């Protein structure tokens, strides 16, 4: 079957699944947010409009990125990383607060979440760093050095947004793991990471409280959101209430269009609909994997791996939180949760991966 291969075009199945996710995501977002939009802004399209604008912008960026040879970014990787550090620093001082978190930078009418940019910057930065040090990746010291290089951004982002910091750290670990021939050391790394987590949790009592809430959300006032999410999921049953019929989105799940949106998907579409959405994400992750495995060079492979890591960590953590499988931490569901910056950079990232697939041999 193998045609005399020239340059392969894009990975069309990736593009298709992304567009499906974009459309499904916008539909769910509209359905979930229309009530809150009507109540708060007297405009049921309020959230949809903003999200659609960011999505359109993102599709533009994706198109551009897909057509620019990704090797160019190697030169800018360090600068992108430095820029993300500066922006994250800026947000600590002049950021806007919303729902008690300082995560946004305002540019006129537009607001921007630097931590979303940081994810992309870290992927590019680590990929190019590893490519430069390709030979030394069997050395434990080198691995640690690479990990240490991203700690500043993890720290800065983590100051205001622990969940995103964990994602960034996770992306870093996956990239280092992929790039290194070592195995056993990663087990040690995992063990020490767990130990570190334990100390970290014990340091601040409010984090321990989160654990208690996780165990028994019904007993705590702060378990309200989790509990309302569970009510929504449980109400879904096998086939759900039907599209648009969620009741929990009517103010019961607070800010249903954000982190807990997957619970509304469960309520409206049931187990089947939710499973289909999960498999769409799994398909997306599989395409990233295919592109990573078949990438022309290490840089392309690492970029695709980074995107895969980003997508899987975010999807898994989001669904795990919504189903109260792990303690509550604010992580959005890619393409579905409300968040302009997130969708903009996700699409940019996918554009980059599409370009990697473009140059597959």
């Amino acid at each position, binding site marked *: 079957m193998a045609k005399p291969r020239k340059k392969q075009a894009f990975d069309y199945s990736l593009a298709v699944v992304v567009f499906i996710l974009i459309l499904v995501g916008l539909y769910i977002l509209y359905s979930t947010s229309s009530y809150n939009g009507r109540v708060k802004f007297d405009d049921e399209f309020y959230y949809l409009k903003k999200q659609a604008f960011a999505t359109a912008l993102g599709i533009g960026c994706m198109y551009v990125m897909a057509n620019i040879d990704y090797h160019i970014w190697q030169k800018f990787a360090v600068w992108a990383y430095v820029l993300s550090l500066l922006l994250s620093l800026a947000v600590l001082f002049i950021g806007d607060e919303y729902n008690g978190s300082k995560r946004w930078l305002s540019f006129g009418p537009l607001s921007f979440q630097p931590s979303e940019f940081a994810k992309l910057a870290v992927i590019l930065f680590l990929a190019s760093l590893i490519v430069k040090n390709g030979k030394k990746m069997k050395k434990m010291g080198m691995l640690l050095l690479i990990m240490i290089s991203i700690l500043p951004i993890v720290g800065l982002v983590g100051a205001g947004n622990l969940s995103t910091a964990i994602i960034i750290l996770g992306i870093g670990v996956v990239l280092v793991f992929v790039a290194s021939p070592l195995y056993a050391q990663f087990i040690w790394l995992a063990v020490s990471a767990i130990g570190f987590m334990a100390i970290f949790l014990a340091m601040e009592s409010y984090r321990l409280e989160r654990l208690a809430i996780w165990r028994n959300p019904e007993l705590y006032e702060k378990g309200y959101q989790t509990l309302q999410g*569970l*009510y929504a999921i*449980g109400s879904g049953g096998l086939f759900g209430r039907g599209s648009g019929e969620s*009741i*929990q989105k009517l103010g019961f799940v607070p800010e249903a269009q954000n982190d807990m949106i997957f619970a509304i998907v469960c309520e409206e579409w049931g187990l089947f609909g939710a499973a289909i959405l999960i498999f769409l994400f799994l398909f997306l992750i599989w395409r990233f*994997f295919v592109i990573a495995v078949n990438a022309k060079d290490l840089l392309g492979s690492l970029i695709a791996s980074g995107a895969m890591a980003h997508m*899987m960590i975010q999807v*898994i953590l989001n669904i795990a939180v919504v189903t109260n499988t792990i303690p509550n931490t604010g992580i959005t569901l890619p393409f579905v949760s409300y968040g302009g910056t997130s969708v903009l950079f996700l699409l940019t990232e996918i554009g980059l991966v599409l370009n990697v697939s473009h140059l597959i041999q």
Partner: protein
Amino acid sequence: MKNKTYIRRKELIVFVCAGLLLIGLVGRLAYLMIFEAEYYQEKAESLHERERQIKAARGEIVDANGVVLATNKTVCTISVIHSQLTDAEKVIRILTEELGIDEATVRKKVEKISSRELIKSNVDKEIGDRIREYELDGVKVDEDYKRYYPYDNLASKVLGFTGSDNQGIIGLEVKYEEYLKGQNGTILTTTDARGIELEGIAEERVEPIAGKTLQLSMDYNIQKYAQQAAEKVMEEKQADQVAILIMNPQNGEIYAMVNVPEFHLNEPFSLETLQLSTLPENDEEKQELLNKMWRNTCINDTYEPGSIFKVFTSAAALEAGVLHVEDDFYCPGYRIVEDRRIRCHKTTGHGAETFPQGIQNSCNPVFIDVGLRLGADAFYKYFKQFGLTKKTGVDLPGEAGTITHKLENVGLVELATMSFGQSFQITPIQVATMVSTAINGGIRVTPHLGVRILDEEGKQVKEFSYETDQVLSTETSETMRQLLESVVSEGGGKNAIIEGYEIGGKTATSQTLPRSAHKYISSFVGFAPADNPQVLGLCIIYNPQGVYYGGTIAAPVIRTIFENILPYLGIEKTGN
């Protein structure tokens, strides 16, 4: 140059991990959505569902002939749901026309962005129906019941009224609450987190059960006539208030219970009836005035019965055998009891008189003698036997008890004054019941208004029975009827004579405390026909101006009422 194998293997490991974790999460979802679904669904439903009550229609109160005295009026509440409006201008125009509110007010309310804006409540049903017929999007017409009293101030203190929650506040509305109130229904609706109902989701409904109808012994015509008579005499005598009780002495059924001034049942919280010169300063003061306005003097207040109580003294002494009709007495105009000189109302004295003359003259010395003959122990024995130490058990809330001396404190002076109805206090209903016992063959009856409970079709569901007790011999009662007939035909009650009827009765004029204020309570109790009493009337005039003798001012009131109601009740004239 392909990437190294280990990199590809590691990428596979990462992907497989992701796949396994995601499949694990699908498993977790399946657990939540299949096995835990019921638990969470139940919780979610109880969170979403709001119970809304559907008011049950309150039972009616009807008189002995089925005339409706208390009923319900359907009223409508008009409100606008902003999000459902399609043609705001049309809505504004129609609501302005139909409700008679100015356009600016309607416009403001219609254009206000709120989940549900109340435009007007207590709208007549006809107007509500008309608005509903326009089928305007976003306009809601809800029906509700409001208690309505067709005759407004008729028997106001007896019927009572209900509060906003449709629960009786005073009078029969309280006493018969359990029959009248019915059972509210419920609608289970689904709401959003702010409690706003969602359209298009099936609602569960439990229909309300309407209250039952209460039928009274009260007769609308008698009540109305008695009220007019009371109002007339109150006006003429510039009295503070006038109470009239008309009842059947044989079984205790009350035909009329009037307490003028009556108040407006459809506006029970309006102080207009009192015609105050200054308005109350605070809520407490207002409530006090309202409570006073709502008081049913016939049962809530006690007074010194005065000479009417001689009926009791006579009956008790006759029954005890210490008095005989033919006994002779002498009245010098006073009687000295211990160190006290107790005067007769005729200060020059009645001279020698028989007992019937004594009662006709309402001579105090005669009754002092009779009372002293009885002695305190026997007096109290009969007092108790007549049921005067207990409440009558009338089916109205707040009946007052008797205020009297303790037996061990009753000396000769106390006994003497009690014999002619002073130095203790009882309620008008108690007086009417006591006289009924004396003349009806000696039976203590329970005065009452409630007769039966009817269902919606008018079929009897329950009939009330009331206690009766033989407390006096029929012979003594027979004697009492004759004695009291002579009071009207030959004594102080002659203003109650009606041609063609034999009327029995007794007058009373009592001075209220403090005696120095020179305020009086004039009263008369009458019954007919004297030999077989079918109706008994008691009229009490509080603080009349000018002439204050019961025989002069109260007896004619009962006479005019009897003149009208005796033929009405089918009591034939006896010829002479």
